């Protein structure tokens, strides 16, 4: 039996009061911890998914929407851009690399991305099975997609417009799963990756009178400068099918691009439909949704976005800037929630103080007896401090368990379809501050009762008893 055990025994002597104090503190701690963990997960996911991308170039509109849709696949795109317009910037000396993405379709809520191998590389995507898509209508799926859909290699499915599953289905052109990615804890897990040409093909052949696609004529582009469109389509559809449909995401997109259904070389594209029923479309006539740009030089961060925004019909948005802005906006809401949770914590701390103070009054004789038994003033001080710390520590531990457990359960319940993976098995660095602050608050709440114990007038207390 030592003083710590005596403190514990003292607390157990009033189990209801002790339980209520711990519960109060757990509620406050848990509420704040949930906000901290969620913010941490969100920030980590945003940073991780931004990878090495310095700039997102797309159609004019909201820059935040452009970043959310082009980088995180968490919003509808601002519209499509002509590949020829994009190419102007891929060849710019300030650009080290540029990855084109063609968006618009999905399957079971998971977005289909037409792109090239470089996109997979920025997330260090590794194939668990199969291969990367190289032929038309081949597709590789992320680990979360595989888990949610149950697709294995060779599975076929039709894509749908938009992200909500309510859009028009491209029944005529089924994708075939040729690869499954290992889990990477990035946005790649929730994507279906195909070639640009496949996306163009699906939209081209979704029109009436379309003909069979010649897979032998389509090459997956290996470089942003070689984003060629070799989709072969019906001659009648050639002109209009050279770009993605101006469909929206679930019917609500506000695409702002112009001349979407025009072709630069419409008059020169004579098609010999009777002989081969196939045609090669010029890359310049195709459309993509965004271009993910990496700077060649740090100075590009200052000049390139302004140049693109001022000198072209395109929009350039910096993920770093937009995400900082987003987190600031979210931070205001989180700040209010944290303020509310802080009130809970403050109530709990005051409750601990009240409980210790009341307990001290009832135990003055015990403290005097302890001095008679040989306890020093400091030991009496520590006895009360231990009680405050035990209550605080228990509140913190239960609060953190509830917060982490709750987030883990929410992650399991929501599954893999969510845009940001939820897991309770993370520790937000700000939780250290939370724990430190709560312990300090617990110590503070115990200081007055502890000091009173320290100052116990033993002869007077014994005389009064």
């Amino acid at each position, binding site marked *: 039996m030592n003083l710590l055990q*005596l403190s514990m*025994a003292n607390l*157990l002597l009033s189990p209801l009061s002790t339980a209520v104090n711990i519960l109060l503190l757990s509620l406050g701690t848990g509420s704040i911890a949930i906000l901290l963990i969620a913010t941490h997960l969100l920030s980590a996911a945003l940073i991780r998914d931004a990878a090495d991308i310095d700039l997102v170039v797309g159609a004019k509109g909201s820059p935040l929407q452009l970043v959310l849709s082009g980088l995180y696949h968490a919003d509808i795109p601002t519209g499509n851009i002509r590949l020829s317009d994009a190419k102007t910037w891929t060849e710019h000396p300030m650009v080290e690399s540029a990855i084109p993405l063609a968006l618009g379709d999905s399957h079971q809520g998971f977005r289909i991305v037409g792109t090239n191998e470089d996109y997979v590389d920025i997330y260090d995507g590794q194939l668990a099975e199969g291969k990367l898509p190289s032929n038309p209508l081949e597709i590789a799926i992320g680990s979360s997609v595989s888990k949610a859909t149950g697709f294995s290699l060779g599975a076929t499915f039709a894509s749908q417009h938009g992200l909500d599953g309510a859009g028009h289905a491209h029944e005529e052109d089924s994708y075939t799963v040729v690869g499954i990615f290992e889990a990477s804890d990035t946005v790649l897990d929730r994507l279906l990756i195909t070639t640009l040409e496949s996306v163009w093909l699906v939209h081209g052949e979704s029109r009436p009178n379309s003909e069979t696609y010649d897979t032998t004529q389509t090459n997956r582009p290996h470089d942003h400068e070689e984003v060629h469109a070799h989709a072969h389509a019906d001659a009648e559809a050639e002109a209009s099918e050279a770009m993605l449909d101006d469909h929206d995401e679930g019917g609500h997109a506000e695409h702002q691009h112009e001349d979407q259904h025009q072709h630069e070389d419409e008059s020169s594209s004579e098609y010999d439909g009777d002989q081969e029923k196939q045609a090669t479309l010029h890359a310049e006539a195709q459309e993509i949704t965004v271009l993910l740009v990496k700077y060649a030089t740090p100075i590009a961060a200052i000049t390139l976005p302004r140049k693109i925004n001022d000198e072209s019909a395109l929009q350039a948005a910096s993920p770093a800037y937009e995400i900082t802005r987003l987190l600031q906006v979210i931070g205001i809401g989180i700040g209010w929630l944290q303020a509310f949770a802080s009130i809970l914590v403050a109530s709990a701390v005051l409750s601990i103080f009240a409980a210790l103070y009341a307990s001290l009054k009832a135990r003055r*004789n015990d403290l005097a007896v*302890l001095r008679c*038994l*040989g306890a*020093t003033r400091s030991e009496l001080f520590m006895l009360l401090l231990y009680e405050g710390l035990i209550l605080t520590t228990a509140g913190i531990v239960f609060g953190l368990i509830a917060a982490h457990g709750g987030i883990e359960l929410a992650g399991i319940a929501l599954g893999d379809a969510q845009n940001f993976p939820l897991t309770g098995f993370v520790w937000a660095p700000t939780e250290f501050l939370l724990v430190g602050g709560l312990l300090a608050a617990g110590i503070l709440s115990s200081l007055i009762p502890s000091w009173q114990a320290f100052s116990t007038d033993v002869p007077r207390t014994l005389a009064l008893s």
Partner: protein
Amino acid sequence: MSDASNIALKIRGLEFGYSKEPLLEIDELQIQKGEHLAVIGPSGCGKTTFMHLVSGLIRPQVGTIEIQGCNITRLKEWEMDRFRGRSIGVVFQRLHLLSAISVLNNLLLAQRLARMTPDKKKAMKLLDRLGIAAQAHSLPAILSQGQAQRAAIARAVIHNPSLVIGDEPTSALDNASAADAIQLIKELSESVGFALLIVTHDERVRGSMDRVLDLGGQT
């Protein structure tokens, strides 16, 4: 002539008062190890103050108090606390067992505060000797008055003190329990070797002590 090492308590030229007028004046007092002294006197004569002085809870304005050869008036407060834990046992009028912990843990805590290694075996043996081994793991609240008194006596002697001070230890007991408690504590005094100083109004106690110090008459 008494052997100096055999003296448990020695007081010389003691004066204490809460005002200019001294409440308590003792020229010289010695108690041998194993000796039993009753401290008596009318209310307000300073019996409790005397007990607090001897246990080092308050300090005299003048004079010295030596326990087992140590002048406790020169000790710092924390040193006195530790000395008290090691060398003095106290039995209170209202017993004051710590209510949150068992009888056994009350004894083990007393050992801990005496800076001894808690000895459960010794504690159980003592409780057995006092006839309350069956209540060792009970909380004090469920003990009878007599059992609680025995537990309080056990806690006061578990660390082999030089001096045990009792503050009206029998005032709440009936005749049989009071006689039993005094007999028990005297037996322990003889076997352990501590001096016994009991502040009392109780004639039953007074009659069973070796000597009496009447603070009202200063004899």
